[in-house]
């Protein structure tokens, strides 16, 4: 957001004061600050992570968007770029990392794999899209999305951030301030704790079906 946009909150500024004072709304300045300093988590999963690193490197340079500070710790990051194939073995860790990120937090699914399973979707160790477990804000198709496509997604995310309001923000409303997602369990296959009852039901009926030939 350039300063002109930032300073036009929709109020009439008397001509004699124009250029002298700046008026903005709290939302705008707050969102402007947030959108221009999104710190991604240093977190690479697969091939897409290489393109993410290239995006952060000198040719594309996320520093121009205030995003160059990749934090290895989830506690210090605002954005999780899920850059690659999400496997069943990895998803408990991803969910845990997501839970540990402080609000406001965003998730960007980079590439076909993170968005919807990707070319390896049919595999036995692959989660068909990270949105099965954690809420995703921006999806970028492509395999891998080129660095410019990723930047396009990041700009989209900035737009989303700018459209939010302090009043309606999830993390300022009353009630539990964190969205804790139950961590999946590695059993005989991946167990989503939110679906335990269903799993039990289904494996019971499966047994019945087996019993009567």
């Amino acid at each position, binding site marked *: 957001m350039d300063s002109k946009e930032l300073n036009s909150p929709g109020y009439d500024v008397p001509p004699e004061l124009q250029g002298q004072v700046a008026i903005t709304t709290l939302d705008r300045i707050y969102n402007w600050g947030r959108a221009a300093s999104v710190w991604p988590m240093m977190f690479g999963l*697969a*091939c897409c992570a290489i393109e993410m690193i290239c995006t952060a490197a000198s040719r594309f340079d996320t520093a121009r968007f205030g995003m160059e500070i990749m934090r290895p710790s989830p506690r210090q990051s605002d954005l999780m770029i899920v850059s690659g194939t999400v496997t*069943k*073995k990895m998803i408990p860790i991803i969910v845990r990392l997501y839970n540990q990120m402080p609000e406001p937090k965003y998730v960007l699914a980079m590439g076909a794999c993170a968005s919807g399973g990707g070319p390896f979707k049919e595999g036995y*160790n692959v989660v068909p899209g990270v949105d099965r477990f954690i809420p995703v804000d921006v999806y970028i198709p492509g395999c891998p999305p080129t660095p410019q496509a990723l930047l396009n997604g990041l700009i989209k995310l900035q737009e989303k951030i700018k459209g939010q309001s302090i009043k309606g923000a999830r993390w300022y409303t009353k009630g539990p301030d964190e969205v804790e997602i139950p961590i999946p369990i590695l059993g005989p296959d*991946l167990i989503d704790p939110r679906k335990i009852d269903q*799993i039990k039901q289904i494996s019971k009926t499966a047994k019945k079906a087996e019993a009567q030939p």
Partner: protein
Amino acid sequence: MTTPAPTQTLDLAARFPGSVTPDEREGYDGWIVAKEKLISFAQVVRDEFGYDYLSSLTGVDYLPEGKMEVVYHVYKTTGGPGLIFKVQVPRQDPIEVPSLMPVYPGADLQEREAWDLLGIKFIGHPDLRRVLMWEGFEGHPLRKDWQEAFFEEEAKPFKSRWPDGQFTMAEDRTPLGDNVAFPAGFDPKKARFDPETALYESLRQYDKEETGLETDHMLVNMGPHHPSTHGVFRMAVILDGETIVSLKPVMGYLHRNHEKIGERNTFLMNMPYTDRLDYLSSMSNNFGYALTVEKLMGVKPPERAEYIRVIMAELTRIANHVWAIGFLLNDLGAYFTPMLYGVEERELILDIFEAVSGSRMMCNYFRFGGVARDLPEGTLEKIHGIAFDRLPRKIDELERLLAENEIVRTRSIGQGVLSAEDAIRYSAAGPLLRASGIPYDVRRAEPYGIYDRFEFDVAVRYNGDIYDRMMIRFDEVRQSIRIIQQAVKDLPGGPITAMKPVYQVRVPAGEAYGRVEGPKGELGYYVISTGKSTPWRYHIRAPSFINLTAFGPMCTGLKIADVVGVLGSIDIVLGEVDR
């Protein structure tokens, strides 16, 4: 390309009468060894015939014949063709084969993989745990009668796509809407899950020193989310203070079931999938796969295609090595500067890839019998400019930046040493092997494509430490530049493919093992065709994965901070480790 030693020249059957027979199936080669004699056979092969290097070990499930087979490919580090031998056992659990760990310690991770994915028990393996899936996972997924939740059909193309391709998400076809399936009668509330205990137990098996002091060792997990692990790799470490007493690599966090999907794909469909193995060097991966299938099909690419292939493979090596050097320095604490310099050169090479193949990373450029398309206009000049003008300059500059830096030298010289004997024993490959003083390079040891025409030296260094592994990458980049310069000069005109482009190639039945010298080391493909449209077995000998066999032994006794550097100097890519 491998041409296994003709069976007649070595009369191993006479040596082991009754228990070793030549493999006489159509299109197959090598020896079938009775499992009782396996270890003594391997000993003879290693000690008397000099096949000291175990390249690949994998299992094959011959479901219709009711047999399980383990296939071994061994080579001599002095060069020359390899030797194949196999063990066949009935396909009834428990499937048991003696472990070759006592003869070839490099079998460690590969046997664990065969156990994990095929359920072959290797008797005598000291630490036979699952390696790619987690402990407690139900079933052995590479068996032909094992099906995943999203299973559609045995072979692609699926019938549901055309002519009546009503779009459905795979998720909508499973009862839970997820890619999961559970054994009948499974009760998630009562079951106990414990994927880690076995790991920690095996980790604690090390020789304890009795100091008489009341000290305790500490268990630390690094990764899978850790900035130094280059992806989702995990190390479980036991520390005595800051010194490592035991380290186990833990992988599988990016296991994408390449081989299972690959056995469902048609031969051509696997080409873009190979891009995603070692995603930093897709051209090399294409190369290996194309060579292997061409060997089965018996086609030879035309001259121009051969030259283009070499140029692309060597550009890939350069791109990979500058990246690896940059990241090694990043791991050693130099933060981003060397990496950014490396990435700049890589970007320029990626521009060339993008121009010829359409994608920066996932090139999908090789076809059986040639390459997908000719070099577009202007690309050759670009390659010329980079190879003759820019890269030699820039590599010198990068070396000036790093090679003499006292901090780099103190942190890397003498650290993480791998001796020459150990490097061979653990089946290390590529720069890791050559930095330990073994001048073994598939391009020279068993030239494939047209590598026998180029003049280049096999880079070799002798100390086997982190510093040598960094410097050998500079040496290799220089040799690659030399090769590219020769290839660009000699590039002939003519067609770029030997066959009419067809999407359904006919591959005669048989087996083939093709290997190339990838940037990370010897990359091998073991493909079995039964004459159908899909391969029966599609196995990848991943250099990153097998190089990790030596990782634990290399790190024992080091400080924890140096482990990061050792890992960086091996240069792994998780897509290839986990496949």
